[in-house]
């Protein structure tokens, strides 16, 4: 049994052209006036990421506790392994700009740069708010008077503003570190005499050029041992 052959019901040929023309026309209309668009999802359509790194949630910030913990857990160990001052001073006397490139670290944007080193020197002068030390023929100062500013906070290279809730807290931390220097490090330095030997670790602002006179650098000490 074969397939039914259609018999006498002969099909009338289907006229396709009008349909094709209508379809193409319709497709053309769709191209011209699309009912919807498929577009690539752009990266910036995503909600802004909370991209800060290591930001502590805004909460009551305890600068005293933070500074105490930072001092014992991070600053003291880092001071013990800080690079030697003698190499820095030799480089500084040759070329301050090159020395800064090699030894200094910078904080944020701008020209501020700092050194964090340790060294041993002989006291050559005792002044009102500083001692002068000779290290391998170079003279530096150790501050013994009130400590101001952010040299310790920014100079040690261990702290970032994004570790605390904001600038006010970062400044409070700086003031607290300065207080710790005055309370813990400076007292034995206030009674030393010329000729004593001091081993210290400290932070100093990097100068743009060599000073015309006076010490090459002024260090805020974070550790100091005196040998009379």
């Amino acid at each position, binding site marked *: 049994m074969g397939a039914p052959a259609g018999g006498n019901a002969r099909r009338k040929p*289907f006229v396709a052209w009008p349909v094709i023309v209508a379809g193409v026309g319709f*497709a053309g209309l769709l191209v011209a006036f699309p009912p919807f*668009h*498929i577009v690539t999802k752009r990266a910036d359509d995503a*909600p802004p990421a909370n991209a800060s790194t290591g930001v502590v949630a805004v909460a009551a910030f305890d600068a005293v506790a933070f500074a105490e913990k930072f001092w014992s857990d991070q600053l003291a160990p880092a001071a013990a392994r800080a690079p030697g001052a003698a190499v820095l001073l030799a480089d500084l006397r040759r070329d301050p700009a090159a020395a800064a490139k090699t030894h200094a670290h910078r*904080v*944020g944007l*701008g020209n501020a740069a700092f050194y964090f080193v340790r060294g041993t020197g002989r006291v050559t002068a005792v002044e009102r708010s500083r001692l002068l030390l000779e290290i391998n023929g170079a003279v530096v100062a150790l501050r013994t008077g009130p400590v101001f500013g952010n040299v310790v906070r920014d100079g040690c290279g261990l702290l970032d503003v994004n570790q605390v809730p*904001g600038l006010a807290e970062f400044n409070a931390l700086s003031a607290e570190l300065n207080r710790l220097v005055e309370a813990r490090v400076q007292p034995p330095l206030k009674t030393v005499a010329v000729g004593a030997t001091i081993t210290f670790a400290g932070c100093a602002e990097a100068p743009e050029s060599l000073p015309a006179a006076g010490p090459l650098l002024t260090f805020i000490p974070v550790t100091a041992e005196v040998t009379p």
Partner: protein
Amino acid sequence: MKNSCFVRALACLLLIGLTVASVGTSAAADVKPAVVRKVAVVVSTLNNPWFVVLADAARDRAKELGYNAVVFDSQNDPAKEAQHFDNLISAGYSAVLFNCTDAKGSIANVRRAKAAGIPVFCMDREIEANDAATSQILSDNYSGCVALGQYFIEVVGEEGKYVELLGLVADTNTWNRSKGFHSVVDRFPGLKMVAQQSADFDRTKALEVLEAILQAHPDINAVFCGNDAMAMGAYQALLAAGKAGKVKVFGFDGADDVVKAVAEGKIAATVMQFPKIMARTAAENADRYIKGERNFPQRTPVAVELVNRETVHKFGDYGRK
């Protein structure tokens, strides 16, 4: 049967048409020139040349990077600032370079922009939130005023009477500057602050406030002003009272007129902030964000520098020469 074929053919054509249309338009969208994106520069005030420089530098850098940049002036009014954010959110801006009017009050505006998918990049003035702005490029005001305070001791001495003119009390910069200055001068008990008043960072207000203070305290030795506009107002008040040159005036910002006044010995010192660096960095961060980068530190401090008679030759045009 005939109808069935016709319907099938039409459905196929429709499907082809739709596919061609969608792919075609997608492809067309990819190849046709990109629409110029808009970047808004919302600045606290244009009634102070320093902020004009900040806004212009942000706008110009955004334009250099290929954006259509528009400056909105909040006129130190948080309500105007909120309106600007409403407008720029509805207008489909791609990013906001923002100098706020209020460290706390402006957070809501930044959050609304963020919710609408618009990243905000703060310049100079901080908002007190870590999860709202994409990044904040901020002057290290505290350090600048520590340096200014130390210079103050050097030229005024360890004894004397002085006045402090504060900026806007709702701005964190006002207090970071004041605290930095006091972290130094308060260590010298011989220095007495006889008056501390806000003049809203405004030159005219500073003139009026200091004139009133001078009536009660004609024997002051110095005036510490939280910005340069107030320093110029204070200098005018002292000039009118015949005390210019006798009373030392200290400012903050590094505005061109004050840098010149420092060179001429009219103003004792100021602190150079770098508005152009901050504005350009914010614009460049916005560009990087729009191009897909997401890893920005929340805050980036910008170092500031003391400008006095010894260092003034290094500075000009709102930065280093």
